[in-house]
């Protein structure tokens, strides 16, 4: 099976700093793939390049057989990649339902149909009762789920989640894990997530890439990764046995 997303020697420099250094990996269709690494490892920069928010300096990004590394963010989304932001960015003055409706309008011309789709997603993400509230009044966990709902509304083939578990309580994390697992199983949605919460990574991901100082130091199944000495050294902490 060919990969849905593949990166080949992708690099990004900010002035002198090499944020992402010749990173290559492939995400097969239908799996949940996690990118982990310490703060400043280049995870969000990697996401921004995949999502079209910034072009890579070198290397290529291929999605569904086509190069996407020079496309603007909105075109990348239309091709089927939706994202959330690490620091959540809902449309603050708009209602929860309007936020998601905007995503659903990407592939629908009829506002009524988009609204119905938005309501279905809000039910799924436990936000239906809050649908008339302005997004700015939501708590952080609710805003995180709202971002996921808005991204899903664009009907992506690949969902990029940038630390959606951060700041959630364990029960909320479990709920989010359950939602993502259900989406992955039922609709075959491919998920690429950046995550610090190892509990979620272990529960969700079937494959993990470890970034450190912009380079990929390890890749494999989660159980292998947590036993990998290089990973333990760079990420989980040198004091680990």
């Amino acid at each position, binding site marked *: 099976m060919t990969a849905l997303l593949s990166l080949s020697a992708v690099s990004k420099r900010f002035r002198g700093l090499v944020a992402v250094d010749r990173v290559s990996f492939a995400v097969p269709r239908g799996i949940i793939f996690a990118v982990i690494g310490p703060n400043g490892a280049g995870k969000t920069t990697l996401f921004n390049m995949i999502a079209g928010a910034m072009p890579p300096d070198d290397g290529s990004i291929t999605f569904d057989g086509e190069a996407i590394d020079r496309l603007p963010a909105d075109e990348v989304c239309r091709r089927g990649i*939706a994202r959330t932001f690490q620091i959540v960015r809902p*449309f603050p003055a708009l209602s929860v339902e309007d936020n998601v409706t905007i995503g659903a309008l*990407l592939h629908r011309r009829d506002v009524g149909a988009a609204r119905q789709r938005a309501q279905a997603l809000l039910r799924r993400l436990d936000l239906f009762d809050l649908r008339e509230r302005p997004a700015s009044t939501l708590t952080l966990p609710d805003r995180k789920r709202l971002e996921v709902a808005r991204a899903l509304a664009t009907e992506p083939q690949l969902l990029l989640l940038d630390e959606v578990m951060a700041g959630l309580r364990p029960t909320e994390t479990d709920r989010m894990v359950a939602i993502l697992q259900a989406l992955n199983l039922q609709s075959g949605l491919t998920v690429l997530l950046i995550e610090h919460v190892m509990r979620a990574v272990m529960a969700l991901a079937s494959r993990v890439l470890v970034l450190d100082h912009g380079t990929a130091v390890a890749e494999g199944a989660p159980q292998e990764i947590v036993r990998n000495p290089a990973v333990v050294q760079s990420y989980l902490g040198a004091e680990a046995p």
Partner: protein
Amino acid sequence: MMLRSLGPASWRSGGLIAGLLAAALAAPWLVNDYLLTVLIIILYFAYAGQAWNIMTGFAGQLSLGHAVYVGLGAYVAAALFTRFGIAPWIALLAVIPVAMACGAIIGFLAFRFGVTGVYFAILTIAFAEFARVGFDHWDLVNASSGLFLPVKQYAHNDLWLLRGDPTMFYYVILAATVLAFALCFALRRSRVGYFWLAIREDEQAARAAGVATFRYKMYAVMASAAVTSFAGVFYAFFYNNLFPEQVFGISRSIEIILGPVIGGIGTLFGPILGAFVLTGLAEALNAGLAAFGLDLPGAKQLLYGFCLLIVVVALPEGVWPPLARRLGVTGVGK
């Protein structure tokens, strides 16, 4: 779908609109000529403010140079009328494309090269100033000596040529204001309208949700320019004289945006309410100062500014949003 979603708030606001419209239709029989002229000016600002609101209130692109579209509309229609006797309604076929082209040029330069925020606003002012200086030296439209429309005594109102008494002009601008309101109501609930709000709220997040921001910002500028240009046509035929200093001046642009700012940016009733509040305030101050026999130069402007300050400080969202909550029509005029 539409009918099912009509809650009590929708019925109340429907009643509000019907009541206001009935009062507006009856106004020429209820007020004297002076007040009728005041109402014409109010509706002119309500219309132009509604047009400006499309671009700034909906799509979040701050224009401080809307006089350029008013001026182009006024000059194109007046020139076609005085030189070729072309009726203003036919002239719209030229006026609207000219205004849209001007909007497209400003939009393209700004959005293609990443000019945003205050820099975008400055660009809009620059274009209005270019136009002012350009028309001031353009002999075809009589340059700085001004373009005049022939004023004659008309035996009857000629709606086709927009020549007639204030009552006719009143109904023309009332119809235009109602149409602009209906247009904005429809736009606000359309796919384009949702994309505009997304851009206004967070442009980067809008792009991440697949909104082609460049294209939709261009639509906003061009739609706003097209609607605004008719305000210029009306201005030319109502006042019968055009001077570049006046129609393209920055104060003309500021006048247009004060209504929606005071009424509530991005709301449908805001521009209308704001125009009433502002013009009403100016007239009330005139009457009040005259009644007290005060004739200090600048006293009116000072008081006017002071009153605006109070409104802005007390009601930062504008007058309409809190009023809408009080009337129980929240969410409808938004």
